[in-house]
């Protein structure tokens, strides 16, 4: 009961947060110099004052800002994200169409970076000062320092253009046909690795430090004094404690991944919402941009919610209080 109460309380908070995000996004966009009406008019090639005024009227841009905000909030909450001026489609429909690609990419990258990063970090942290540790730390620093777009381009250069092992772009869903699982995975591999590398570096460092810290704690000495084998101590005593900071970090990074995917989606022509948002930004497609912001924000809030709930599960010390 207490647990359910906690989850519903957090859900309520998350909903309130989203409403705040929607309003803030809306106001931020309105603060950008430039009038949407003139942009639309410019797009249509008719910039005379009458036309602009008519556009203002049609789109409700002549109303006071707060009224516009109210309209926007009501529409958004009833899942009407509006119409893209440029692409002449419904914003929500397009986002829904593009969302699975982003979820597949970021989800795969998230899991891949966690598994690889934490494993390497634990291997390094359980034998600090060894050659393996030094090597892993070197890799971590290298991955941390190299820019994402450069790695992406290099991977394309080596694995697609030279070796012809993997496709350089797209998902395999283009041209209306449905690819096989292997086909899709071969498309996913390079962008996923590109997006993961930075986070792998972060998790290596975090997991390593955390394992080293926990190894020096008293209860590990106690476990040793009981005569437990060291592999058992690492698995049962060190890891559960060392993983806690990684969970916290992973929750924060999960939201980060979505924004990180903008660059990767652009490099690999991956048809996700990252690229959609980037294009909307360049073309001043406000409704589309707001829609992408909102969906991204919702994902971040949801992921943090999941992390909070997960934290209660992995750490019994978290008292369920307001």
């Amino acid at each position, binding site marked *: 009961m207490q647990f359910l109460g906690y989850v519903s*309380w957090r859900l309520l908070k998350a909903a309130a947060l989203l409403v705040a995000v929607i309003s803030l996004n809306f106001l931020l966009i309105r603060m950008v110099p430039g009038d949407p009406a003139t942009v639309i008019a410019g797009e249509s090639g008719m910039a005379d004052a009458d036309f602009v005024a008519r556009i203002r009227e049609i789109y409700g841009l002549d109303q006071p800002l707060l009224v516009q905000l109210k309209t926007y909030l009501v529409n958004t909450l009833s899942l009407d994200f509006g119409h893209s001026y440029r692409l002449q489609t419904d914003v929500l429909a397009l986002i829904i169409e593009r969302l699975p690609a982003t979820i597949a990419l970021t989800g795969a990258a998230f899991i891949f970076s966690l598994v690889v990063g934490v494993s390497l970090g634990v291997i390094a942290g359980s034998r600090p000062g060894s050659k393996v540790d030094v090597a892993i730390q070197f890799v971590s620093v290298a991955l941390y320092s190299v820019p994402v777009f450069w790695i992406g381009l290099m991977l394309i250069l080596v694995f697609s253009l030279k070796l012809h092992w993997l496709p350089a772009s797209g998902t395999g869903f283009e041209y209306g046909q449905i690819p096989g699982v292997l086909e899709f995975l071969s498309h996913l591999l390079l962008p996923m690795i590109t997006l993961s590398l930075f986070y792998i570096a972060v998790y290596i460092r975090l997991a390593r430090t955390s394992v080293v810290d926990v190894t020096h704690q008293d209860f590990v*000495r106690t476990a040793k004094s009981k005569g437990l084998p060291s592999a058992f101590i690492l698995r049962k005593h060190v890891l559960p404690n060392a993983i806690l900071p990684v969970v916290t970090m992973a929750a924060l990074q999960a939201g980060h991944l979505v924004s990180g995917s903008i660059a990767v989606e652009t490099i690999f022509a991956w048809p996700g919402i990252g690229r959609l948002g980037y294009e909307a930004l360049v073309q001043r497609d406000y409704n589309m941009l707001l829609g992408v912001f909102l969906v991204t924000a919702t994902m971040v809030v949801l992921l943090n919610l999941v992390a909070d709930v997960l934290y209660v599960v992995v750490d019994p010390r978290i008292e369920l209080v307001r």
Partner: protein
Amino acid sequence: MLEIEKLSIVLPSGADRALAIKDVSFSVKSGSTLCLVGESGSGKSVIGQAVAGLLPQTLHCLKQSSIRLGGRNLLSLDECAWRRIRGREIGMVFQEPMTALNPLMPVGQQIAEVYRSHGLRLRKAEVRDRVEGLLERVGIKDPARISKSYTFRMSGGQRQRAMIAMAVAMKPKVLIADEPTTALDVTTQRQVLDLLADFQAETRMALIFITHDFGIVADIADEVAVMESGNLVEFGSKEDVLARAQHRYTRKLLAAVPRLHEHKASVAERSTPVLEVRGLSKTYGVATSIFRRQDMRVLNDVNFKVCKGEVVALVGESGSGKSTIAKCLTRLTSIDTGSIRLDGADMLSLKGEALMKLRRKVQIVFQDPYGSLNPRQKIVDAVSAGPIAQGVASREARELAEHLLTIVGLGRNALDRYPHEFSGGQRQRIGIARALAAKPEVLIADEAVSALDVTVQAQILRLLADLRDRLGLTMLFITHDLRVAGQVSDRIIVLKAGNVVEEGPTQAIFTKPSNQYTYSLLQAIPGISSNESALVRNKCVC
């Protein structure tokens, strides 16, 4: 049974000395208790770790060293053989039961691991029965529930009992207990000591008890080994060491032990109360679920007075509310009901500038000399910050700081140094100088000597007594240690669960306590449970 010969342990280069342990030899017989005594840094814990094969990787033993258990030299064992000895033949109990247990694993499971790691093939139900039986054996009342509990839901005493259960699960031949009662209340300490003695009588194990407390030595030791910076300076039977200590260091340690019944008459002018606490109550809200908060009363209608020039000791176990009183008096926390009057003025109604003025008058010295000084602040700034905030010119404040540091026994060269350059005792002197800088009417010492070694503790207590004579300080001395209270105070107030249960002149409290709880506290003090114990009888040796 356990023979240590020529044990020398090398410290990494750059340490303050080359050897952590220098050529130490002694032996412990089955069924007997050896107390390993010394101050922090003396190497007593390192010996314990060496015997249990738990030396940190940075330390290693010299070649000629040997630790023999049943004929084998433990130091020549490989990790695999060590693993079979640890937990089965040598058990270990650590000082801090909170950190010595895994916070994410129920304690029952942590105890069950001992059986599993030593190859006992038991069915689940058997393991559960054994674990619960063991928990019951160490005096845990609800073993089935505690077995499934995490450590953060257990009291300090329960944790240490669980720790002991873990260490004795395989009935080891040797048990090493490294300050196992230092983190516990005096009554809990008494119970844990009794429990260990009980087990020893039952299993005839050899007990190596590492401690800094001569009271405990007087209670439980058969033999005593005194360590000073890595050297074994004295070894002998308890009677010999306590009554006829040969080495000057042992005599110095013994002299530093706070004693009961050793008090001079009060010098306070009893007429004018400086501090008057009336009907003080304080409740903390504790959340029991997301929608419910339960109120926990930490102070319940507390009344007392402190007169000018008087030292009053506030004594109680953890959770008795003594530190909450300190926080209320310094206005660091709010108060539910009641009044606090300082020099007749109501302290609680003050705000803003008047409150600032008041803060000057009540100063506090905290328990932890490490945590209570800002590590990036020079000593002179730490000491003069108070006066400067009160409007003293910075040049004058510096002179004042210099003067005060001299008074507390530190030279003027302390002024421009940082806290990490000082020892715990020196830091506590700085803390006292800082408190005195404000020229307080009342000085509150909140467990100010609890974290210190016994000789350092004695020095700080002497300093406080001296300051009191010279400056006519009025002091509220908060402590859990009745021996310390007995040494410094004119009057003692005994607190239990937020209530004042007894109050009276120090001498009277010690000789004729009228409250049962005070009596049990007195009885629990190690070294005086039998009033004729060697320590008390021979208090004039030094």
